[in-house]
C-alpha cells in the first residue's frame, strides 16, 4: 500500500469574530497518498483556504483548530510548536498562495529570493543553491539567464512560475497550491497548468490543489474533494466523480460549468447561496438548496461514508 503523506481526521476549525463563532471547517476527513494530487473544489467561503492554513499552522490569531488531527508523515502537526512548524514549512510542506505573484518582493532579485528560501531551510552552500535555482528554472520552463531579473521584469505567467520554482526549491513532500491560476489569462493559465501536470509526472509530487474552477482541477488532479460550507460532502477519484457524482451539490456544481466540447447543455445552477457560517442550517448544511431533501436532512448531519472504491459521500439520500 502506498505511503500516506497526509491524513486529516475529523478536523474542526473555528474563527472567533465580533459577531460570534464561525464554524469554518466541520468534521473534514481525508487522506493523501504519496504522489497523488488532491483537488479541493468549492465556492468561495467553503473553507478550502482554511484547511490549507490549518495544515501549515498559519491560521490567523482568531482562528483555532478545536478538534481533530492533521497527521503528516506519521506526526500530528497540531501538537507541534511554532518553532517545529517553522522548520517544517518550505522544507517539508510548501505553499503557493493565491495571487502569489504579488508576494514577490519588488526590490530583491528573484534569484536572491529563491536562494533565501533554500539557504534558510537547508544546509546547502550558496554555490549548490545557485545550481539548484538553475535546475528549478529549467523545470518550470523559465530561461535560467533571467534569474537575476527583478519581479517587475517578469510577466504574470513568469512570476507564477517563479513562485512554483520557489515552492519546489527544498524538494518538499507536500505542496499546497491555492488558486495559482486565478489571476491569469487563458493562455498563460494553460501553460501553468501544463507545467504543473508535467512536474507532477516527473517528480511524483504530492499536491493539494485548491480552486473553484472544476475544469482546472479535473485536468491536474487524480482525486477530488468537494467542499460545501466547511464540510467535505464528496471525495472520489476524478474519473469516478465526474462520471458518477452522488452528492446533490456535486451534481449541481458539475451542471453549472459550460464546456468547449460536447453539446451545449442548458446550465442548471444551484438556486440560492451558501449559508452564513455563523449560523449554519441544522442537519445537512446543503438542505436549504436541495429540492430533493427529506426530513432527516433537516435534522441530522450526514457523515462521510465509503460507497465504493475510494468514493466517499456525506449524504442521507445516497
Amino acid at each position, binding site marked *: 500500500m502506498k505511503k500516506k503523506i497526509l491524513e486529516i481526521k475529523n478536523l474542526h476549525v473555528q474563527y472567533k469574530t465580533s459577531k460570534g463563532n464561525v464554524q469554518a471547517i466541520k468534521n473534514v476527513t481525508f487522506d493523501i497518498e504519496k504522489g497523488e494530487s488532491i483537488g479541493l473544489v468549492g465556492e468561495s467561503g467553503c473553507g478550502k483556504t482554511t484547511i490549507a492554513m490549518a495544515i501549515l499552522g498559519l491560521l490567523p490569531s482568531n482562528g483555532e483548530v478545536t478538534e481533530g488531527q492533521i497527521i503528516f508523515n506519521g506526526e500530528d502537526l497540531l501538537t507541534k510548536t511554532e518553532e517545529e512548524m517553522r522548520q517544517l514549512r518550505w522544507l517539508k510542506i510548501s505553499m503557493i498562495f493565491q495571487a502569489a505573484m504579488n508576494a514577490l518582493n519588488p526590490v530583491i532579485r528573484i534569484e536572491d529570493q529563491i536562494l533565501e528560501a533554500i539557504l534558510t531551510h537547508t544546509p546547502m552552500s550558496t554555490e549548490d543553491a545557485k545550481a539548484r535555482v538553475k535546475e528549478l528554472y529549467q523545470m518550470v520552463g523559465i530561461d535560467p539567464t533571467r534569474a537575476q531579473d527583478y519581479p517587475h521584469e517578469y510577466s504574470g505567467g513568469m512570476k507564477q512560475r517563479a513562485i512554483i520554482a520557489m515552492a519546489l526549491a527544498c524538494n518538499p513532500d507536500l505542496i499546497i497550491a491555492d488558486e495559482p491560476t486565478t489571476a491569469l489569462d*487563458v*493562455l498563460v493559465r494553460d501553460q501553468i497548468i501544463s507545467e504543473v501536470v508535467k512536474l507532477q509526472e516527473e517528480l511524483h509530487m504530492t499536491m493539494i490543489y485548491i480552486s473553484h474552477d472544476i*475544469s482546472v482541477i479535473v*485536468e491536474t488532479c487524480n482525486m477530488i474533494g468537494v467542499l460545501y460550507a466547511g464540510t467535505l460532502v464528496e471525495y472520489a477519484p476524478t474519473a469516478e466523480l465526474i462520471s458518477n457524482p452522488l452528492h446533490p451539490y456535486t451534481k449541481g456544481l458539475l451542471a453549472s*460549468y459550460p464546456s468547449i466540447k460536447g453539446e451545449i447543455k442548458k446550465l442548471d445552477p444551484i438556486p440560492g447561496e451558501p449559508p452564513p457560517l455563523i449560523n449554519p442550517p441544522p442537519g445537512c448544511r446543503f438542505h436549504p438548496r436541495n429540492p430533493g431533501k427529506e426530513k432527516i436532512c433537516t435534522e441530522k448531519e450526514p457523515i462521510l461514508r465509503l460507497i465504493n472504491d475510494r468514493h466517499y459521500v456525506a449524504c442521507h439520500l445516497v
Partner: protein
Amino acid sequence: MASLIQIKNLTKLYPLKKSLFRKAKKMLPALNDVSFDIEKGEVLGLVGESGSGKSTCGKILVRLERATSGTITFKGKDINDLAGKSLKDYRKKAQMIFQDPYESLNPRRTVFDTLVEPLNVQHMGDITEREERIKEVLEKVELRPAEEFMYRYPHELSGGQRQRISIARALIVEPEFIVADEPISMLDASVRASFMNLMLKLKEEFNLTYLFITHDLAYARYICDRLAVIYMGELVEIGPTEELIQDPKHPYTKMLLSAVPVPDPKIKRKRIEREVHMHHSGGCTGCKFSERCPIAVQDKCPGIGKGKPELVSIEDGRFVACHRIHD
C-alpha cells in the same frame, strides 16, 4: 436589414509619453483598423486576452472613450462625434456592465440611490414613476422582494447580487444595447451560471443586443451567437459561435481553443505551444501574430512593407484575417 451597430476601420491610439507642451511622438495602438457589425438581437462575443483591446472597444461603443479614427454608427447615425443632448440621448440606448462587482457600485450609496441616478439624470418619469420603475427592474433581475433590497448598501449584498444591481442600473433606462465587460470573471462558479441565464432571459424579454467581452471561451460558447476574436488590437476571426469553435480557421483561434481546460477526464486535449517562433527585426507592419504563429512563413507573414492581413470572407458569415488563409 442594416445592422444595429456598424464599426468601420476603428482605430484607437493612446499617447505613450505625455507632455504638456509637445504632442506625443510615440502612440500605442490599442485598436488598429477594426471593422465588424453587431446585428440587432444578437449576442456577439468579443474574445481575447488581456491587453488585446477588447475592453477599449466596448468603452468606445458606449462613448466612455472616443475613437481616434474610423466610423461607428448606431442605427445609421454616427456616435463618435455626438455631444450635448444627442450624446445624452444615446446614453439611454447603450449601456455597460462591468467586471468587478465590488468596485462597480458606490459603497456610500444605497441600491435605490444607485438605480435612481440614471433616471434623475435622464429626467425619466416623476418621483412615483421612478420608484415604481426601480421596483420593477429589481424584480426583473430576480432580487425579490424588491422592497428588501432597495435600501441596502453594497456591502450588504453578495457578489452575484451586486452584479444584478449592475444589470438593473443598465436596464433601467430601457437601452437597446448593452456591453458586458467580463461580467462573470469575478463571480463564483455556480453564481456565474445563474447570471448567464439571467442575461439570456433579459435579452429575450427586452429584445436586447449584447456585446459580451470575455477571455473565457467556454462561457462565450454558452451565451454568444457569434464570436469575434481579437489579438493585439486587431480582429483575426469572426463567425457563428459553434462553427468557429468546432472548426477554427485562424491559428490564434486554434491556440485559444486548445488552451481551454475541459472538465472531462476522458478527453485529453492537445495544447498548441505558445512560443516565439520568429523574431521581428525592425517594425512589424504585417501580421502581429506571426511572432508566435506555428504556421507563420517568413516571407509572407511579418510582411515588412506588406500590410496587416485583411478580413476575408471564406464562408457565409465567416471572416478570417490571415496571410496564409488561401494556402
